[in-house]
């Protein structure tokens, strides 16, 4: 094994350790990981559901405009979708209130 290989292997090992150990060192500085840690899974779930519901509202509108839904059907589907969207928004709002309360306290 020549010197060049040894040097290259050591450089690679150093790079691997530096990459992997970064977060472990950063854990001493708690704030570095705070942003991610406080992201609530429930909020992420609701936000994904909200985006999906918005897309569904747009899709229903496109279905209506391309003649796949009658006026009555579109009115019913649209109302149902908007009600579902409202329920999701309410849950998100409640979650935000919940998370704001302890901070204020």
């Amino acid at each position: 094994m020549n010197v060049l290989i040894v040097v290259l292997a050591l450089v690679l090992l150093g790079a691997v350790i530096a990459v992997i150990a970064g977060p472990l060192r950063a854990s001493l500085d708690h704030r570095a990981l705070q942003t991610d840690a406080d992201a609530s899974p429930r909020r992420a779930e609701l936000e994904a559901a909200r985006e999906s519901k918005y897309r569904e509202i747009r899709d229903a509108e496109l279905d209506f405009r391309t003649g796949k839904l009658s006026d009555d059907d579109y009115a019913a589907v649209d109302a149902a979708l908007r009600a579902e969207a409202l329920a999701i928004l309410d849950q998100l709002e409640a979650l935000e209130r919940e998370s704001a309360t302890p901070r204020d306290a």
Partner: protein
Amino acid sequence: MADLGRICLLLALVVCAYGIFAALYGVRTGRVEFSESARRAVYALAIVLTTAFVVLELAFLRNDFAFNTVADTSSRTTPTFYRAAAVWSSQEGSLLLWAWLLSLWSSLALFLVRKRMRDVAAYATAVLLGFAGFFVALMIFYATPFQTTSPAPAEGVGLDPLLRFPTMMIHPPMLYSGYTLCTIPLAFAVGALATRRVDADWIKAIRRFAFAAWLFLGVGILLGARWSYSELGWGGYWGWDAVENASLMPWLTGTAFLHSLMIQEKRGMLKVWNVSLVLATGVLAIMGTFLVRSGVLNSIHAFGGATLGVPFVVLIGVLVAGSIYLVVSRRDVLRSEHRLDSLLSRESIFLANNVVLVALCFVIFWGTYFPLISEALTGNEASVGPPWFDRYTVPLALVLVLLSGIGPVIAWRRATLANARRNFLAPVLSALIVLAVLLAAGVSQRPFALAMFCCAAFVLGSVAQEFVRGARARQAIAGESPPVALLALVRRNRRRYGGYVVHVGIAVLFVGVAASSSFQHAVERPLAVGGSTRVGAYTVRYVRPTATITPKEDRAHTGSTLDLGAVLDVSKAGHHVATLRPSEGFYDSGEPAQGSVGHLIGGQAVSHISMNGGITRDVWTAIAPNIATPALQRIITVGNRTLSPEEAPIAIGVLARDYLKDPPPAQFHFIVSPLVMWIWIGGLIVFGGGLIAIWPAPSALRRRVALRSRSRAAAGLARA
């Protein structure tokens, strides 16, 4: 440099082991820094495996025959272009390519979810590193790409001539990208099930990767078909070969998932089904790799020995058992949030489409693994051929194409019969017009082909109607010109209209398949110079023989020592259509036992087909020259006896001269296939549609649309 490669593999294994531990420890104890460190371990793995891959690639490019894999699959006469691709022609090299691509795709996936789903991502990290660790361990303990021999041989065996084809540069990386990308949704599904977070968030995280896997796998399959058609000398593009089937199965379940995930996104339904499809797709991708690499089933594409069978079977067993356990144990959180509103809805069509796709997958699975099943049950290995596959897959494919035309014209949630009647009018009319035209043209003797043409016309009609109506609606709202309205429509609804384009591509592709397989004319017969034969409406005449000797130093060539072929004149009704020049390359076997002359042409003989392709038909020709005549064999025998290796090319020159002077009859294979070109065009359309669908919406536009939807939803709700 081989030492550096070996160090990389050992380091990669350590990184995998650490990453799995850190991910699981982090998620179990809530120590975020460990989960984060595990994610970084995947990046580190990518760095290490990239280094290993570069080491091996350099060994090939520098003709370092001290590496066993380089000596076995490359040579100085192999052109640089193919030397670079020869890395993945070997068992060891392809394992490294798999692990390397997995590390790159995994890094990208984990980077994109770095700000969310930390607990799900931690489990996914452990699974992905588990896969990577498995492949790295195979390379360390079973098939190392960095094994060396001292002293190094002066010359290598050379790349398998069958693999000296331009698309082979990208076919395996495409296919392997597809396979490795399939494991990403699987890993996230495991994470979602483990953490009981089977909501819309994980679907959102993996959607693009599932689509990318589908796209890469599709392109890989198509390139493989093209290789088979243009290189293998049998004139077909799909032979229901075990390895072809292995790549098709995850593509089918992946296609099913891409449809059913929309139902989960919109309705919170089919959670068990979706998670099962994702897990099945991932397992089938691993099984595909297993088939290629284990040598367990005979295939023209299988390059592995039998040594890797046991580890792969163990991995697949663990995956299947683990998947079943996770789905069963999480059934309480996998309950559907809604029920189907109506049987006449897009959801129902998607469900039907899923059933057909999974049925297709099951049929192919059964046919592919039948040799193993029959051997296990009866002790005799029996296999099923293309007619068996065709019997079941053709009707299913017909239904599939038909459904891909019905889906676009049916609304989500519910559709009324009156609307359906109106929306089906144009597509049904398109199908009926095609039927009438074909019947008038006398095309009635192939009912399945006829049905496929009508179904394809139905799809084209329904998609065209969707584009026209959508553009008109957009024109009415925004007052844009038709082309601008069409572009804006697609840009704002990429997934929907990209998907429609994919449907068109699939319909076009199946038209090519149906036409070329049902109305093909094939003739196999010997011809002497001056002789001719009829193939369908064409006459092919053997004008004269050809012979080309390639000096070994000529590295620009594909490396055959001698090429023998023919000049063919193709005519139709007395009019010249094309001049074709098929040939067969004779390669150096590298076996001194065949004699100084014999070994120069004693290797694998590879057909170089010649084709006149067009949008209506391909005239495809191949030749198998006869060099086993006593006169030609005498040249080789005498040359072996009297000529030194340096003088041996003289005998090849004499052989070529005598072949041209007095050519023996050669065996020819002629095929006239209609519409084959449309298979490749269909594939390109599918690829284009896939790119439209996968392309991310501009962030500014996304924000604007989201804001508008939000305010619209709020306004609507305020009214309610």
